[in-house]
C-alpha cells in the first residue's frame, strides 16, 4: 500500500524532465499517479468495508431468493417466494405495524419531551449541569444493562413499579407490564424514552446554543412573548437539528433489536417483536436463512427508501453545500 504513493513523490522532480512534445503524456502520467495516491489512501477502508459490510449485504440479497438452511451454498432457487411469504406473514406485518407505532410515539411524545427539556436546560438555571448529565447518562449504558434492569423493575408484583404503585395505593394501575400483550409496547416505549431522550436533548441543546442571542433579544424588544419567541425564532432556527434528530429516531426504530431481544425476545406471543428480532428468530433459531435474508432485505429496503425520501424532501436544504462544494487540497 505504501508503494502506491511513492511514485508520486518521485514524479515531482521528474515532471520537469520530459521535452515539450511529451508534456501531454507527462500530464496524463501525473494525473494517473495523483489518482493512484488518492485512492491508495482509500484501500484499507475499501477492503474492510467491502468484505465485512458490502459483501454480506449483497449476499443477503442473493440468499433472499433461495430456500436455504444456512449450510453449504444456497441452491434451491425459489424466485420471489420468500418476499410473497413475507407480506402474508402476520408476524412480519405486525412488525411493520409496531415499527410505525414506535415511530409515531417517538415523534409525538419522546422528541417533544426532549425538546422541552432542552429549552428548559438552555436557560441559566441552578443545577443545569447536573440535570444534563443525569438525563444523558442512560444513553451511555448498554442495552444489555438497561434491558435486564428494567426487566426486573417491571417484574409483575415483585418489581419496583408494582411495589411503588402499591405503596401509593394504586395497585389497580399495576400489572404485568412486559408480560401483558396489551402493555408490552407501552412499557417498552417508556424504557426507550428513559434511555434515548437524553441523546436527542443533547442534540437540541447543541442546536440551541448556536442560535445567536441577539435574535431572541430582538424579538423580545419587538414585544414577542415567550411562546412567540419560541415558535417564530427558536423553532425555525432549530429546524436542521430537529430534522436530523427525527431521522435518527426513525432509523433507530426500524432497526431496533438489542433492547427487545434482552427484555422480551419479542414476546409475549410476538407482541413486541421487531423486524430484526423476527429475522434473528428465523436465521439463527429456526435455520430458515433464506427467509430470514428476505426479512433483512425488506428492512434494508425500508431504511433506504425512507432515507432517500427524507434526504430528497426534508434534508435537502441542510445538505446543500455538504456534497456539492467540496474542494480538493491535492489538486
Amino acid at each position, binding site marked *: 500500500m*505504501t508503494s502506491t*504513493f511513492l511514485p*508520486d*513523490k518521485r514524479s515531482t522532480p521528474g515532471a520537469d524532465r520530459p521535452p515539450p512534445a511529451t508534456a501531454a503524456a507527462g500530464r496524463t502520467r501525473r494525473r494517473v499517479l*495523483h*489518482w493512484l495516491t*488518492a485512492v*491508495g*489512501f*482509500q484501500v*484499507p*477502508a*475499501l477492503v*474492510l468495508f467491502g*468484505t*465485512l*459490510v458490502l*459483501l*454480506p*449485504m449483497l*449476499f*443477503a440479497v442473493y440468499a433472499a431468493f433461495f430456500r436455504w438452511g*444456512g449450510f453449504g451454498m444456497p441452491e434451491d432457487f425459489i424466485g420471489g417466494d420468500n418476499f410473497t411469504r413475507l407480506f402474508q406473514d402476520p408476524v412480519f406485518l405486525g412488525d411493520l405495524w409496531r415499527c410505525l407505532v414506535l415511530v409515531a410515539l417517538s415523534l409525538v411524545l419522546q422528541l417533544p419531551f426532549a425538546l422541552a427539556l432542552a429549552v*428548559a436546560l438552555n436557560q441559566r438555571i*441552578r*443545577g443545569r449541569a447536573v*440535570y444534563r*448529565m*443525569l438525563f444523558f447518562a442512560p444513553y*451511555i449504558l*448498554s*442495552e*444489555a*444493562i438497561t434491558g*435486564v*434492569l*428494567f426487566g*426486573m*423493575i417491571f417484574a409483575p408484583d*415483585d418489581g*419496583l413499579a408494582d411495589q411503588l404503585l402499591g405503596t401509593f395505593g394504586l395497585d389497580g394501575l399495576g400489572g404485568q407490564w412486559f408480560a401483558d400483550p396489551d402493555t408490552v409496547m407501552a412499557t417498552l416505549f417508556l424504557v426507550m424514552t*428513559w434511555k434515548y431522550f437524553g*441523546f436527542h436533548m*443533547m*442534540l437540541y441543546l447543541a442546536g440551541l446554543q448556536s442560535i445567536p442571542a441577539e435574535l431572541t433579544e430582538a424579538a423580545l424588544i419587538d414585544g414577542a412573548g415567550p411562546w412567540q419567541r419560541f415558535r417564530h425564532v427558536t423553532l425555525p432556527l432549530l429546524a436542521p*437539528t430537529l430534522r*436530523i*434528530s427525527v431521522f435518527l429516531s426513525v432509523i433507530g426504530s426500524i432497526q431496533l433489536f438489542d433492547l427487545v431481544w434482552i427484555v422480551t425476545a419479542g414476546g409475549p406471543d410476538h407482541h413486541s417483536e421487531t423486524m430484526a428480532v423476527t429475522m*434473528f428468530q428465523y436465521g*439463527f433459531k429456526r435455520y430458515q436463512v433464506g427467509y430470514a435474508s428476505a426479512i*433483512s*432485505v425488506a*428492512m*434494508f429496503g425500508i431504511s433506504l427508501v425512507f*432515507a432517500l425520501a427524507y434526504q430528497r424532501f426534508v434534508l435537502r436544504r441542510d445538505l446543500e453545500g455538504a*456534497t456539492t462544494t*467540496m474542494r*480538493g487540497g*491535492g*489538486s
Partner: protein
Amino acid sequence: MSARRTGRTLPLHLVLAVVGVAMAVPLVYAVLSGFKSTDQLSRNPIGLPDPWVTGNYTDILGSSSFWQLLGSSTLIAVGTTVVVVAVSALAAFSFARFAFRGRETLFTLFTMGLMFPFAVAALPLFLLLRSMDLLDNPLGVILPQAAFGLPMTIVILRGFFREIPAELEEAATLDGCGPLGFFWRILLPMARPALGTVSVLAVVASWNNFFLPLLVFNEPTWWTLPIGVQQFQGQYSSEYARIFAYLVLAMVPALAFYSVAERQLVGGLTAGATKG
C-alpha cells in the same frame, strides 16, 4: 427582583426535579437493592437496606469471571478503536484533501453505510466469519465492528480535515513533504481533538455492542460485559439482589468513562449528527 425570578422559575425547577427523580430512581434502586439479600429485597423492596449486605458486591468483585469480561470488553474496544480510527483517518484524508475521479461515488457509498442496519448483514457476516475461522476469536468482533464504524468516523474526520487551511499543505509541499508526510507529520497532530472524539465514540459503541459478540462468541472465553450481564441474569434468575449488584458493577466503567470523556462524547455525537 430576585424573588420574582425564583417565583417565575419555580414551575421549571419542579418539572426538572420530577424528571430527574424519574431518571435517577431506577439507578438508585439498583444500587440499594445490591446491598440487600434477595430475601430482604422481597420483604423490603423500597426502603433502605437493613442491614447493609456487601456480600453481593464483594462476591462479584472477587470472582475471576467478572474481571475476565472486563478484560475482553477492554481489549475488543481498544482493538476496534485502533483499527477504525487508523483506517478512517487515511480515507478521510483522501476525501478531504484530494480531488479525484470517483470521489463523490465513493463517499456516497460510505455515507450510505450510515443506514445499513447491522442486522441485515448479520446472517451472511456470521457465515463469512465462520468460513474465515474467526468465530470465538476477538478479531471476529473487532474487524466487523470497525467496518461498521467506518462511515460515521470517516464523515466526522473528513469534516475536521477539511477545516485545516490549504496554505499549510502548500507550505509542506514546498518544503518537500509528500502526501504521506503531510498526513503523518502535520494533519494527524493537528487533528488530535477530532481523533479523540471519534475514538471515544468507537470505544462506547464497542463497549455496549451486544448483537455481534452474541453471534461470534459461543464459548465464554471472550464474552464481553453485555453478554456477561445477560448470562448472569439467566444463571441467577431468582437471586434478584445479586443481579442488581452485578448490573451496578457493570455500569461503573461506562459511567466513569462518561464522566472523564463527556466533552468528546457529546461533541462527537452532535458533530456526527449535524456534520453528516
